[in-house]
């Protein structure tokens, strides 16, 4: 018999974690129960295969790598709906591959950089594809992708027109301290994070660019503790990551109510599934493994450095790292490669990227000089650790810092910092 005591999902009291609907069923509880049923099925199947394969669960690196490298080359026509997210596809795939420690050949790296250059607008910023208008989301994706490729050759950084990028970011900035996603586009906290992240990486974050931005972010923290996309809306995992990560990049973490943020984020891990939901009373989704999961290292870091909090653990984040790994490894691997939202869903590169990023956060505790690895299942499941604020490997962040750190501000920005 295999040793089942190692796994939370196989503990004897596991069934007691089923959703409690207090004899008051509603749409939310009915949908929740259906998901729990499908997740339990995965965990039961896992239980029976453990007798045959004692080093389960197993991250199928080979199949995921195959799915990713194929996507890096060609995609079927069903991807037409992502034709305005091609730099995203590059980033999702390259980041997944860097977590899996797959090496990119130099020729390939230069080809990707060249393609991203084709997506760059003559007036600055990157569009969703060649000859599309510049947009902050693909701009973030393109810059992140180039940071990863810089590990192969830092020639790729030549693609970025910093001066024009700065002008573009300034053009997107609104009076309320937020950013439009594009000319004539919508304003929300994603724009803030994307703008601040690329500005930091390329070392063009001036006072002029960051003025008033923390005010906007602060207005997005809701009564629940998480952040919303725009003031007044509901706290949400993706937007919460954008909010807190941007505050870190702006050096304004004092503007966040950390206590309520931590409570809300801790409560987003789902009792039975072990993964994260995006909002209160919503369903688990593999992608929130990162959006919510990354908030823990970020908050930990803030409380440690800003508040010198002695009560923090020196070994663990404040969520159940094993439970999240079990959910990702047992419920979110697609049988043909790639990772997914929840059992029964289709695979895609977005979920592959954020499931793997979340898995990495759950595997590695890194606090200053301290580090602690918790690897569920086969030891080869270990991924590279991520820098949670940018969602890049530590090396990729360093590449950008090394390259851009010594560069002067663009002339238009030089006297405005």
């Amino acid at each position, binding site marked *: 018999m295999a040793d089942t005591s190692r796994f939370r999902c196989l503990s004897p009291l596991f069934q007691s974690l089923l959703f*409690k*609907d*207090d004899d008051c069923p*509603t*749409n939310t509880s009915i949908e929740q129960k259906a998901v729990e049923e499908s997740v339990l099925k995965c965990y039961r199947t896992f239980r029976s295969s453990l007798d045959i394969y004692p080093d389960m669960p197993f991250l199928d690196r080979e199949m995921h790598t195959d799915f990713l490298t194929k996507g*890096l*080359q*060609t*995609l*079927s*026509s*069903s991807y*037409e*709906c*992502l*034709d305005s*997210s091609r730099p*995203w596809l*590059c980033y999702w*795939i390259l980041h997944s591959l860097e977590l899996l420690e797959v090496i990119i050949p130099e020729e390939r790296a230069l*080809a990707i950089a*060249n*393609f991203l250059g084709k997506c760059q607008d003559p007036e600055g910023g990157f*569009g*969703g594809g*060649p*000859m*599309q*208008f510049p*947009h902050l*989301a693909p701009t973030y994706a393109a810059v992140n992708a180039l940071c990863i490729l810089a590990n192969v050759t830092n020639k790729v950084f030549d693609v970025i027109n910093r001066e024009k990028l700065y002008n573009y970011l300034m053009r997107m900035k609104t009076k309320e301290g937020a950013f439009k996603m*594009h000319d*004539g*586009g*919508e304003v929300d906290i*994603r724009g803030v994070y994307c703008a601040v992240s690329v500005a930091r990486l390329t070392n063009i974050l001036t006072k002029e660019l960051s003025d008033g931005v923390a005010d906007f972010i602060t207005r997005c923290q*809701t*009564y*629940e503790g998480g952040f919303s*996309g*725009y003031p007044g*809306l*509901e706290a*949400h995992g*993706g937007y919460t990551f954008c909010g807190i990560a941007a505050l870190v990049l702006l050096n304004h973490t004092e503007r966040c109510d950390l206590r309520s943020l*931590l409570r809300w984020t*801790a*409560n987003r891990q789902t*009792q039975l599934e*072990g993964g994260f939901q995006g*909002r209160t*009373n919503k369903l688990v989704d593999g992608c929130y493994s990162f959006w919510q999961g990354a908030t823990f290292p970020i908050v930990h870091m803030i409380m440690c450095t800003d508040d010198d*909090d002695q*009560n923090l653990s020196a070994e*663990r*984040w404040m*969520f159940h790292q094993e439970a999240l790994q079990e959910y990702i490894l047992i419920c979110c691997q697609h049988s043909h490669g790639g990772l997914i939202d929840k059992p029964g869903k*289709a695979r*895609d590169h*977005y979920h592959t990227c954020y499931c793997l990023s979340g898995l990495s956060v759950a595997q590695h505790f890194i606090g200053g000089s301290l580090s602690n690895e918790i690897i569920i299942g086969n030891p080869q499941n270990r991924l590279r650790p991520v820098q949670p604020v940018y969602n890049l490997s530590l090396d990729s962040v360093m590449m950008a810092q090394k390259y851009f750190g010594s560069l002067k501000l663009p002339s238009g920005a030089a006297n405005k910092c």
Partner: protein
Amino acid sequence: MSECNVDDAASNEAWVPFKDRPEWRDLKPIPQDDGPDPVVQIAYSEQFREVYDYFRAIIAADEKSERALSLTKEAAELNPANYSVWNYRRNILQELNKDLKEELKYISQVIEDNPKNYQVWHHRRVIVEWLEDVTDELKFTEKILKEDAKNYHAWQHRQWCIQQFSLWDQELDYVDRLLKEDLRNNSAWNQRHFIIKNTTGYTDEIIKKELKYSQDFIRKAPNNESAWNYMKGVLQERKLFDFPGVLEFCHELYSKQIRSPFLIACMIDCYEEMLELGKPKKEETLQKATQLCNELAEEHDTLRREYWQYIARSLASKYGADVSGDS
């Protein structure tokens, strides 16, 4: 952030290739320039490729015409997430002074087919802004929310309309209806908070009313986090202790053997606040609070053991007699 099902193949009903469209003969299509060594290359259908080749051509020519307008429709249908298409379409609508009511009808249909897409909702918002007419907006968002009561884009649009055009009056009734249908609808609870905060504000009187409102829902379903979060949100600017009913309410449920983690967490918050305010019986309060943390960590909320143990340590080090700073 990526809302499309990549397993769905696009439909292709009676599409006329551009070579069979005489009205386009004068325009030279512009192929996409992916460079010499393309990556993440999508195997476009012939239709997709042609429509976008012509779309690039009209942008390059800065053409704002009827045919260009209908081309944006074709392009948007093939990929509703292409923000360049929607943006250019708006430029044409303005230039040609088109009937925006018609556009609103059109975008309604597109949103119904793609309710989770940023671009189509943004398009709608701009059209409403131009029209300065929100007659149908509440009804429309209600229709979308009927299909998915938590659609973030729909709520965002609704909040914008309410704020922009002062449509506050009936909204609490709507929220009330939604909560009666599903008391776990967190978007509806959030909307309640949004409305009150922007109208009457949380005055003493409103707080009392809202406490009762949320507590009635909590009694029905003590494990419903949304109602607990709202109840605490009501008191955000105040102290839980200013309204002594809160701790008593918790005690009442606790004495009925209810062990919802949200109940216990709320009790911990009450005790912590008493400690903060320097209320008497400090040691006893601290002991109660840390004991509840342990109860959660070991029994009722073991998934969050790390978190509750941290809260217990924090309370003990901040308010405990044996803290080094005190000696």
